[in-house]
């Protein structure tokens, strides 16, 4: 089912998504007592990158050339599937959850492939870690979705989110709380935030996401950075739909509320980044599995006849 | 009824008092006095009330009578033995730990814990309420752990740790069983006792009862020494001081067995559960026999050998109850006989240890020459523990195999005899090596292990085992038959 108004809103969200990393950085700067980069910084970065020329390593193949495009388009397609502004997604059908997960998966797959393509050890390390963490985080996402499906007995994301109201939260507070926490952790994992990965580090040995895009320049890097912002927007909107509900509001109010909620999520991520230190690499899998366990607990809670 | 309460509370009081008495002699004498008073009161209690006392918390039936007398008797023997033992083995100074100053340099902990141990066992035996019985059995574990650690060596610490952990885990599982047992009851059942539950056997939920029985069997079985939960037994019983080992093997294992028997009493009234319980008991019994048979062969340490022998006899007990019929009565008789013989063997091992200062079989030779009395008793004990006529253990073991053959369980009987044979061979080699042969190069002074008080308890116990084998007095017979009937069996 295609909803033109939602597609429009989705496009607006995509265009505005680079604001989210900007808000995160501003929050971090606030905690650090600094001014920090302007909220529009990512736009300026992308504009700067587009002006430059690309340099490709000799060892790379066509994979590196096409990867940025695949990443961007898969993320954009995923964005179309996500419910926005409490109004449902641009495109929705039965089982679109699976497509969403796998679109994001395609993006990740090509990023990893391109990273391995460079033949450099740093990228390989980063790729391995990224794949491990994503594999560990998938169950959390899916268990959460399972709970939502069982709660609302719908199979399309838009339909599920339409049915989620404050009633559901009051009846099963623990379940939803656990899922919200678990999905927050998944958001941090998928978007390479502290405490899993430090986006500001300059030590290649400790990078996970950053190191995979180390060899990119100019237009490719611009596309990838933009795709990263869109991915953050996708996960944020999933989380926002879970926590808040605004079906009954009028259109302008819905837009406003949605924007505010997304900004709130970005601020929360910023707070998390400012207050917690990054985990040792040894402990990260434990942490992610822990979030998966939280989701499974929520599932068990739900299935035990609540 | 007051006697029953006194039996439990008195040793607690005197035990705590013992902690504060500074004179060692007074402590030892107090231990003796408490032992005799307890024995006296037990006999009074068992004779005085005809029939059964059934309270909600404490009660006295044939089973408790049997085990109470055995426990009390054994404790008296150990207490007498301890008089000399504590003299020879003064406790050394322990450091202050966590700022708590235990009365170091003394046998205070020994005396106090022995009495607390006695009280806990009395509680476990006399209690009818399942929850209260659990408390008693757990308390026995707690009271006996410091006793195992009496010698403060690395090995005994390791043994005490294993004992503590394994038994506590087992007993925690038994607590789960108690909760499941509570689930079997419906609103009709008034008292959470074996009698109370049996009364309403038609209303019990069989599935929960079976699950509860499994937990009881595994949990209390770990405490009893049934394989494969027996791992702590060889370590604990060999590292503990000899009078403590005698109590552990002779009395404590029986108490744990009583825990299983109480729920068996309930299972007997529910046909579906009884068959299930019998099968499990037979399996665990045979397994224990097998394990003990394997580990006794070529066992280098004679105290560990005795410990494995305890595993074997616990297996025989489980097997006897599992076979049903008059094998149950035989198992009851065997419990009594085994306790007497094992206690005397452990006390004798203490004598040997005192003289030779080694627990290894290879270090001990020509026992009959160096320690004539203990050596002769040791040899007699060997015959007794392996079930040789005319000792009572022969009667009970034979009765069990007879019932097995009569009921057509050929395989069970064959395995039973096979494992008994293994144990016999293993112990034969060890005992023969120890008793006969030429004297070793070391000159040992046999008199260190032959004083009157050291020899008296083993003599008494072994003689009792012999006499019981020759002639079963009426009061013994009625008690054993009564216990068997309670468990759904037939008289001997």
């Amino acid at each position, binding site marked *: 089912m295609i909803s033109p108004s939602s597609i429009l809103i989705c496009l607006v969200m995509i265009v505005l998504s680079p604001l989210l990393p900007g808000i995160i950085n501003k929050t971090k700067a606030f905690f650090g007592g600094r001014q920090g980069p302007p909220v529009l910084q990512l736009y300026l970065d992308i504009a700067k990158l587009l002006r430059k020329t690309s340099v490709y390593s000799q060892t790379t193949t066509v994979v590196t050339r096409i990867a940025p495009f695949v990443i961007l388009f898969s993320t954009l397609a995923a964005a179309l599937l996500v419910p926005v502004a409490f109004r449902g997604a641009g495109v929705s059908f039965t089982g679109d959850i699976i497509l969403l997960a796998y679109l994001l998966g395609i993006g990740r797959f090509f990023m990893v492939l391109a990273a391995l393509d460079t033949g450099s050890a740093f990228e390989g390390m980063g790729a391995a870690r990224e794949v491990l963490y994503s594999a560990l985080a998938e169950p959390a996402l899916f268990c959460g979705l399972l709970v939502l499906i069982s709660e609302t007995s719908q199979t399309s994301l838009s339909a599920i989110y339409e049915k989620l109201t404050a009633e559901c939260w009051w009846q099963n507070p623990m379940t939803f709380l656990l899922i919200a926490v678990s999905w927050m952790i998944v958001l941090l994992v998928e978007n390479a935030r502290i405490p899993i990965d430090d986006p500001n580090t300059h030590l290649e040995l400790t990078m996970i996401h950053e190191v995979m895009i180390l060899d990119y320049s100019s237009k490719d890097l611009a596309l990838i950075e933009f795709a990263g912002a869109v991915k953050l927007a996708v996960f944020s909107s999933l989380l926002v739909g879970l926590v808040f509900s605004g079906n009954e509001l009028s259109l302008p109010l819905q837009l406003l509320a949605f924007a505010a909620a997304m900004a709130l999520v970005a601020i929360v991520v910023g707070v998390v980044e400012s207050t917690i230190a990054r985990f040792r690499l040894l402990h990260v899998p434990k942490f992610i599995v822990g979030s998966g366990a939280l989701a499974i*607990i929520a599932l068990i809670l739900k299935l035990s006849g609540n | 009824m007051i006697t029953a309460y006194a039996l439990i509370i008195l040793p607690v009081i005197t035990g705590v008092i013992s902690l504060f008495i500074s004179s060692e002699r007074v402590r030892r004498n107090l231990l003796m006095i408490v032992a005799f008073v307890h024995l006296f009161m037990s006999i009074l209690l068992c004779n005085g009330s005809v029939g059964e006392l059934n309270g909600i918390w404490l009660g006295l039936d044939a089973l408790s009578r049997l085990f109470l007398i055995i426990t009390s008797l054994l404790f008296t023997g150990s207490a007498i033995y301890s008089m000399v033992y504590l003299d020879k083995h003064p406790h050394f100074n322990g450091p202050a730990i966590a700022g708590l100053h235990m009365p170091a340099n003394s046998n205070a902990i020994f005396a106090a814990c022995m009495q607390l141990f006695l009280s806990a066992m009395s509680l476990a035996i006399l209690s009818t309420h399942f929850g209260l019985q659990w408390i008693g059995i757990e308390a026995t*574990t707690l009271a006996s752990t410091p006793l195992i650690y009496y010698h403060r060596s*690395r090995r005994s610490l390791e043994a005490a740790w294993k004992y503590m952990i394994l038994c506590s885990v087992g007993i925690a599982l038994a607590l789960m069983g108690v909760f499941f047992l509570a*689930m079997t009851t419906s609103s009709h059942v008034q008292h959470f006792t074996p009698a109370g539950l049996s009364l309403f056997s038609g209303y019990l939920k069989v599935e929960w009862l079976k699950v509860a029985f499994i937990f009881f069997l595994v949990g209390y079985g770990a405490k009893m020494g049934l394989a494969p939960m027996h791992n702590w037994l060889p370590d604990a019983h060999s590292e503990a001081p000899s009078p403590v080992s005698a109590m552990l093997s002779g009395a404590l294992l029986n108490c744990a067995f009583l825990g299983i028997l109480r729920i068996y009493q309930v299972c007997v009234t529910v046909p579906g559960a009884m068959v299930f319980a019998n099968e499990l008991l037979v399996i665990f019994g045979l397994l224990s026999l097998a394990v003990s048979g394997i580990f006794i062969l070529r066992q280098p340490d004679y105290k560990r050998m005795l410990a494995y022998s305890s595993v074997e006899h616990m297996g025989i007990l489980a097997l006897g109850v599992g076979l049903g019929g008059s094998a149950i009565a035989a198992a009851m008789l065997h419990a009594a006989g085994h306790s007497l013989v094992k206690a005397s063997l452990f006390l004798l091992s203490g004598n040997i240890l005192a003289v030779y200062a080694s627990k290894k079989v290879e270090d001990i030779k020509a026992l009959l020459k160096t320690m004539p009395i203990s050596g002769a008793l040791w040899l007699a004990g060997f015959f007794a523990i392996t079930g040789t006529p005319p000792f009572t253990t022969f009667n009970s073991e034979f009765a069990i195999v007879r019932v097995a053959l009569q009921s057509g369980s050929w395989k069970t009987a064959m395995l039973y005899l096979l494992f008994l044979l293994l144990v016999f061979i293993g112990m034969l080699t060890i005992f023969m090596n120890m008793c006969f042969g030429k004297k070793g190069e070391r000159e040992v002074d046999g008199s260190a292990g032959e004083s009157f008080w050291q020899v008296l308890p083993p003599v008494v116990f072994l003689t009792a085992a012999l006499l019981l084998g020759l002639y079963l007095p009426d009061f013994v017979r009625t008690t054993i038959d009564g216990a068997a009937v309670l468990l759904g069996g037939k008289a001997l």
Partner: protein
Amino acid sequence: MNGIATLLAISCLLLLGSSRLLVSIRMVAFQGVLLGLLPLFVAGSGHIGAAALILTITNIGLKSILLPWLLTRALFESGARREIEPFIGFGASIMAGVVLLAISGYIVNRLQSTAEISSSITLIAGFFMVFSGLFLLITRRKALTQTLGFLVLENGVFTTGLSLGSEFSVYVELGILLDVFVGIFLMGIMLFHIDREFDHLDVDRFNELSDLTVDVASNEEASE
């Protein structure tokens, strides 16, 4: 009550994955507090009787204050701070914990049909605590963690009992509590001794007494 049960399950998971011993002790103390509050919420009781209050206070006092104090003292004396990498690694432990949780859920699901259980979530948490306590006991190498595992096991049994709606009198419950307390107390004291004797708290190296080791003939004199 569901909330408390969920928190109990989460605390168990944290225990399974934590390698810092102090954190583990604090977590078990937290469990003690939760357990103390549990009787107050047992389904069906509109009023909070004196019995429940006594249980709560005793529980919290013993399990959350006294025992952690003792175990922390033992910890500081021994100088150990972290658990050695156990037989099953910490990350794998959490995954195993998730599997155990699923198994508990399955078991309770099967049990639902045979009896009325007042709160299935609490029963699941109870089973899970029993399993994770056993898991800790089996796979960890430090004696302190084994003690904690035993405490978690007892907590699990207690929770199971509560959720099955067993109504024992206060005396029995108190007796059970007391037994557990003394048990852990003794274990704590033994921890001091173990550390003194062996210079480490690693129970994996407790292998002097065994019939399966090849060199049974140790050089030590028999303990006299």
